[in-house]
C-alpha cells in the first residue's frame, strides 16, 4: 500500500519538476562551491607544505647591515631555539636591457655552491645548477626568465651596489621563498619586470666587497621556537643589534608566505559561507515545496494512515524525496565542483609558482558535499513532514479547509489601502496568507543580493585602493632607489636624467617604533613638506600636510602601538648609534600598502643627526613622452651606479589592474552567476508553486477575458515586491559580509577597506530586477501553456 503513496508522490514530484529542478540547481551550486573551494584549499595547502618541506623553507628572515658572517653565526648560536642558519647577501639590481622602455629590476641573492640543499634552496626548472670554474653564473627565477625569453647560456647585465656585471644564465629555478613574487612596494606580480637572480656566494662577496660578510640571515627554528617566533626573533635582534637590524620576520610575516596564508584563509571562509548560503536557500525553497506537497498528499496519506501505515515508514518515504533532491544536487554539483576546482587550481598555478600543484579532488570531499546537500534537503523537508505527521486520518479524508482570504496588516491603514488596486491587494493578502513562504522568498532574495553586492563591492574596494595608492598618494611616474645614504646632490643628478621634469628627494630610515609594550618595525619616509609626488592622505582622501616637525603615522600602526595623534612614540633607528628618540606623532594617515610613516625630510635628517641624506627620489616624467625618450631615460639610469632600483609607477598600476581584472572579474562573474542561481531558483520555485495553486484563479480570470499579460502581471507584482524588498534588505547584509572579508584579508602588508559605490547598490538592484524579469519570461510562458479549461469546473 506504500507503493500508492510512492506512486502519488512520484507523480506529484514529476509535476513539480520545475520547482524540484530549482532546488536541485541551488543545492548543486552549494556543493560545487564546497567541492571547488575545499579542494583548492587542500591542494594549495598540501602543495605548500610539500614545497616548504622539500626545498627547506626558512622559519625566519633577518636583514642586517653589512656584518661579519662569523659574528652573526656566533650570535645565532647563543639562541637555543635556532637550529640552523644561513648567512647570505642580498642586493637590489637594475638590469641593463638594451632598448627596454620599461625598467627591469631584480633581487640578487647569494647561494652556496650546493644551491638545492641550502635553506631556502632552489628547485631547478631548466638548465643546470652552478658549475665549478665559471664565477659569474646566475640562476634566474623561472617565471622571470620565461617572461623575458632568457635561456641557459644567455648573458645579462646587472647594475648593483655601484657595480656593473655580466652574468651568464646557468639555469632557471623556483624557490619556496617566492611562490608569489612581486616587485618591492607592489602587490601584483609582473614577471617581465622583476625577477630573482641567484649568484654564487663568493661571487656576491666579491661584487659587493663583502668578503666574510653578509647582510641577511635565514634560519630554522625548533618547533618550540616556531611557536614562539616573535620572542626568539626579539632576542636574536638584540644579539645582532650592534650590526644594525633592518628587519626580522617569522615565516608567517614573510610576504609570499603571507599572501598564500591569506589566500588559504579566504578559501576557508568562502568554503564555509558560500555553501552555507546555497544550502540554506535550497533548504528554504525545498521547505516551501515539501509543505505544499504534504498538502497535496493529504487524502492519500490520510487513507494510508487509516489503513494503519505507521508514522515511521511514512516519514522515511517522505524524507526520501527531499533527500533524493539533495543527493541529485550534491552529485551534479560535485561534478561541476571538480571542474571548477580544476579551473581554480589553474588560476593558482598561474599566480603562484608551485613545483607541483595538482587539481586533486578527494572522494571524501565529494562525499562531504553530497552529505551536506542531503542533510540540508532533509532539514528543508522537516516542516512538510511535520504537516504530514500532524494529519489525523479523519481530517485527511476531508478536503483541506478552503483557503480563506485574510486582511493584511496594511488594511488597517485605510487611506493607503484604498488607493491600491485589487491586484496589489491580492498580492498583499497572498503574503498575509502564506507568511512563511513570503519570508523565505524575501530571505532568499536578500542572500542573492548579498552575493551580488559582495561581487560588486570586491571590485569597488580594490578599485578604491588602487585609486588611493596610485592616484592620490603616489603621484610620481618613476621611483628611484639609491644605495644607502646618498647626499642631496643626487637630486640634481636625477633631474638631469632625460625626460625628468621634476623630482623630489626621499629619505627612508628603517627603525623600530615602540610605545609601552608594543613595538613595530618599519621605516620613516622623509619627504618634502611642499612635495607633490608623495602626498599622504587621511581616510577621507584629503591631503594631510607634512608637518615641519613630527610624524604622520599610518592608522593601523598607530592602532597596533596604541597611540593617537598628539602622542609621542619611541623611535630607534637602525643606523648610526641607534639611540632611541622620543618623537611626536602629529597626525595619523591612511596607508593601504604597508604601514607608512612620513615626516619632513629636513626634520628627519636633523633628528637622526644627518645632513642632506636621501635614499631615493620620486620623479615626474615629461607628459606624453614617447618610447624613445623612455629608452634614453632607462639607458641613462643604468649608467648611474647610484641607482639601485627604478619602478615605473604606471606599469605597477597596470600590473595591478591586469591582475585584478583577471582574477577578480572572474570571481565577480562567478558570484553574479551564483546570485542568479539563487534568484532564479527561489523565484521560479515560488511562482511555479503559486501557479499550480492558483490554476482555478487563473482560469477564472482567463474566462473573464484577462490576457496573459494581465495575469502575468499579478505574479510579476508578487515577485517584484518580494525581491525588491529582499534585495534592499540584502544590501546591508552584503556590506557587512564585505567588511568581514576585508578584515580577513588584512595584513601588515596591505589593508582593504570595504567600499561600495552607490552605483554598485544600484547595479545590485538592477541585476536583481533583471533576474526577476528573466524569470517572468518563464512565468509568462508557463501561464500561456497552462491548460486552464479543466480547472474551471473542478471541485475545489
Amino acid at each position, binding site marked *: 500500500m506504500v507503493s500508492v503513496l510512492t506512486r502519488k508522490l512520484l507523480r506529484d514530484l514529476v509535476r513539480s519538476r520545475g520547482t524540484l529542478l530549482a532546488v536541485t540547481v541551488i543545492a548543486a551550486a552549494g556543493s560545487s562551491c564546497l567541492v571547488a573551494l575545499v579542494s583548492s584549499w587542500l591542494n594549495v595547502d598540501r602543495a605548500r607544505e610539500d614545497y616548504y618541506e622539500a626545498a627547506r623553507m626558512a622559519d625566519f628572515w633577518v636583514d642586517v647591515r653589512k656584518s661579519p658572517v662569523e659574528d652573526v653565526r656566533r650570535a645565532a648560536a647563543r639562541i637555543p631555539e635556532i637550529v640552523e642558519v644561513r648567512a647570505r647577501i642580498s642586493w637590489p639590481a637594475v638590469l641593463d636591457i638594451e632598448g627596454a622602455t620599461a625598467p627591469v629590476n631584480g633581487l640578487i641573492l647569494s647561494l652556496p655552491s650546493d644551491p638545492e640543499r641550502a635553506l631556502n634552496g632552489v628547485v631547478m626548472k631548466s638548465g643546470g645548477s652552478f658549475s665549478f670554474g665559471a664565477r659569474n653564473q646566475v640562476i634566474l627565477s623561472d617565471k622571470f626568465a620565461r617572461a623575458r625569453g632568457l635561456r641557459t647560456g644567455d648573458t645579462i647585465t646587472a647594475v648593483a651596489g655601484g657595480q656593473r656585471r655580466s652574468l651568464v644564465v646557468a639555469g632557471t629555478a623556483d624557490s619556496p621563498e617566492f611562490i608569489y613574487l612581486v616587485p618591492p612596494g607592489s602587490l601584483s606580480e609582473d614577471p617581465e619586470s622583476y625577477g630573482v637572480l641567484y649568484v654564487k656566494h663568493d661571487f656576491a662577496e666579491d661584487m659587493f666587497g663583502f668578503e666574510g660578510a653578509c647582510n641577511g640571515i635565514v634560519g630554522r627554528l625548533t618547533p618550540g621556537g616556531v611557536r614562539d617566533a616573535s620572542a626568539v626573533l626579539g632576542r636574536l635582534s638584540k644579539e645582532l643589534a650592534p650590526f644594525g637590524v633592518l628587519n626580522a620576520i617569522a615565516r608567517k610575516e614573510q610576504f609570499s608566505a603571507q599572501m598564500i596564508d591569506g589566500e588559504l584563509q579566504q578559501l576557508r571562509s568562502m568554503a564555509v559561507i558560500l555553501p552555507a548560503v546555497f544550502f540554506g536557500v535550497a533548504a528554504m525553497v525545498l521547505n516551501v515545496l515539501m509543505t505544499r506537497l504534504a498538502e497535496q498528499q493529504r487524502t492519500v496519506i490520510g487513507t494510508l494512515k487509516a489503513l494503519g501505515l505507521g508514522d515511521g515508514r511514512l516519514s522515511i518515504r517522505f524524507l526520501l524525496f527531499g533527500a533524493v533532491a539533495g543527493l541529485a544536487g550534491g552529485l551534479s554539483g560535485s561534478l561541476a565542483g571538480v571542474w571548477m576546482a580544476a579551473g581554480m587550481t589553474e588560476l593558482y598555478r598561474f599566480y603562484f609558482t608551485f613545483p607541483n600543484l595538482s587539481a586533486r579532488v578527494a572522494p571524501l570531499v565529494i562525499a562531504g558535499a553530497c552529505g551536506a546537500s542531503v542533510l540540508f534537503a532533509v532539514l528543508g523537508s522537516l516542516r512538510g513532514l511535520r504537516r504530514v505527521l500532524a494529519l489525523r486520518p479523519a481530517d485527511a479524508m476531508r478536503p483541506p479547509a478552503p483557503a480563506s*482570504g485574510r486582511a493584511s496588516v496594511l488594511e488597517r491603514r485605510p487611506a493607503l489601502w484604498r488607493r491600491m488596486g485589487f491586484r496589489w491587494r491580492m498580492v498583499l493578502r497572498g503574503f498575509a496568507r502564506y507568511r512563511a513562504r513570503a519570508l523565505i522568498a524575501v530571505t532568499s532574495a536578500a542572500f542573492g543580493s548579498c552575493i551580488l553586492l559582495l561581487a560588486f563591492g570586491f571590485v569597488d574596494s580594490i578599485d578604491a585602493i588602487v585609486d588611493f595608492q596610485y592616484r592620490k598618494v603616489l603621484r610620481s611616474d618613476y621611483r628611484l632607489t639609491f644605495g644607502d645614504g646618498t647626499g642631496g646632490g643626487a637630486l640634481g643628478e636625477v633631474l638631469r636624467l632625460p625626460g625628468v621634469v621634476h623630482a623630489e628627494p626621499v629619505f627612508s630610515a628603517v627603525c623600530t617604533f615602540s610605545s609601552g609594550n608594543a613595538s613595530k618595525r618599519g621605516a620613516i619616509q622623509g619627504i618634502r613638506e611642499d612635495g607633490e609626488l608623495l602626498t599622504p592622505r587621511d581616510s577621507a582622501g584629503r591631503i594631510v600636510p607634512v608637518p615641519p616637525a613630527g610624524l604622520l603615522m599610518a592608522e593601523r600602526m598607530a592602532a597596533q602601538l596604541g597611540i593617537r595623534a598628539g602622542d609621542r612614540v619611541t623611535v630607534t633607528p637602525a643606523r648610526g648609534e641607534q639611540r632611541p628618540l622620543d618623537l611626536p606623532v602629529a597626525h595619523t594617515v591612511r596607508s593601504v600598502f604597508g604601514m607608512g610613516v612620513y615626516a619632513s625630510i629636513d626634520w628627519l635628517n636633523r633628528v637622526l643627526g644627518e645632513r642632506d641624506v636621501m635614499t631615493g627620489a620620486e620623479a615626474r616624467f615629461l607628459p606624453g613622452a614617447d618610447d624613445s625618450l623612455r629608452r634614453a631615460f632607462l639607458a641613462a639610469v643604468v649608467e648611474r651606479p647610484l641607482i639601485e632600483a627604478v619602478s615605473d609607477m604606471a606599469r605597477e598600476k597596470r600590473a595591478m589592474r591586469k591582475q585584478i581584472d583577471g582574477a577578480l572579474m572572474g570571481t565577480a562573474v562567478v558570484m553574479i552567476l551564483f546570485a542568479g542561481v539563487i534568484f532564479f531558483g527561489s523565484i521560479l520555485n515560488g511562482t511555479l508553486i503559486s501557479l499550480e495553486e492558483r490554476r482555478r484563479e487563473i482560469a477564472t480570470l482567463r474566462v473573464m*477575458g484577462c490576457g496573459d499579460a494581465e495575469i502575468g502581471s499579478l505574479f510579476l507584482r508578487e515577485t517584484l515586491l518580494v525581491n525588491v524588498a529582499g534585495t534592499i534588505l540584502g544590501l546591508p547584509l552584503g556590506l557587512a559580509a564585505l567588511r568581514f572579508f576585508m578584515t580577513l584579508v588584512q595584513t601588515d602588508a596591505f589593508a582593504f577597506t570595504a567600499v561600495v559605490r552607490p552605483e554598485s547598490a544600484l547595479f545590485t538592484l538592477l541585476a536583481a530586477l533583471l533576474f526577476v524579469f528573466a524569470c517572468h519570461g518563464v512565468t509568462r510562458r508557463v501561464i500561456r501553456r497552462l491548460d486552464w479549461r479543466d480547472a474551471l469546473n473542478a471541485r475545489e
Partner: protein
Amino acid sequence: MSIAEPQSSEVRSEEPFVVLENVTRTFSMGEVEVRVLRGVTASISRGRMTAIWGESGSGKTTLLNLIGGIDRPTEGRVLVGGVNLPDLSDRELTRFRRDRVGFVFQFYNLISTLTALENVAVAAELVSDPMDSAEALRLVGLGEFGDRFPGRLSGGQQQRVSIARAIAKRPDLLLCDEPTGALDRETGVRVLALLQELNEKQNVTVVLITHSRPVAALAHRVLFLEDGVVRSVRDTEHPKRAEDLEW
C-alpha cells in the same frame, strides 16, 4: 439605480443571437477519439432564457464552452451576434469574452484573496462601461456583504457574488453552468429567481445549463442534449417561475 424598466416596447424579438450550425467537438485522448458533440444545430434568442438540459456527460459544458469562446469546435459554426467564433484569433476570443460574456460556474470560482466587492470589481474593471460594483452586489441582494471574503460567505451567497461579477460587465450573454449544482433547494431557488429576474428586467440573454428537468422549465427554450446532439427543442412564452419550483 434600481432594477431598470424593461427595455422599450416589450415586443420580444425572436432574433437569434447565438446560432450553432452542425457543431462537433471531438477530444482525442491518445489513440482514442471521444466524440462529445456530433453535430449540434440550435439557436438562442436575444433577451431570452435558454436552458441546455441533459444528463451528466451529455456534453453540456462542452457546448457552453464553445458558445462562450473558451473552446473551439472541431467542426461547424458558432455564430454569436453574427460573428463566427472559430474564425477569431485567441486574442480576439479573449476580447470577446471580456466584452460580451458573463460566466457563472457550479463552484463559484471566486478569488479567495479578494472581498466580495473586489471580486465584482475585478470583472467590472475589464470593460469600458461597467455597472457600479456595489450596485451589482445590491442587485443580487448582497449590498451589505461587500467587505466579506468568499470564505466567510455561504455557498448561495458566493454564487450570488459570482452572478454579480458576471453581470457587472453588462454582458450580452450570461452563461451559467449548473449554477445551483452545489446549493440546497432554498438557496438554489433564490439564485434561479435572481437569474430569471435579471433576464426579465435587465433583458440579459441567459443560457442555463442543468441536468434537472424542473430547473430547465424556467427557460423560454429548452434544448435537450443527448448523445452529442440536440434531441428536442421546446419553446414556451410562459416559463415556470422560480418561486414555484418543485425539485
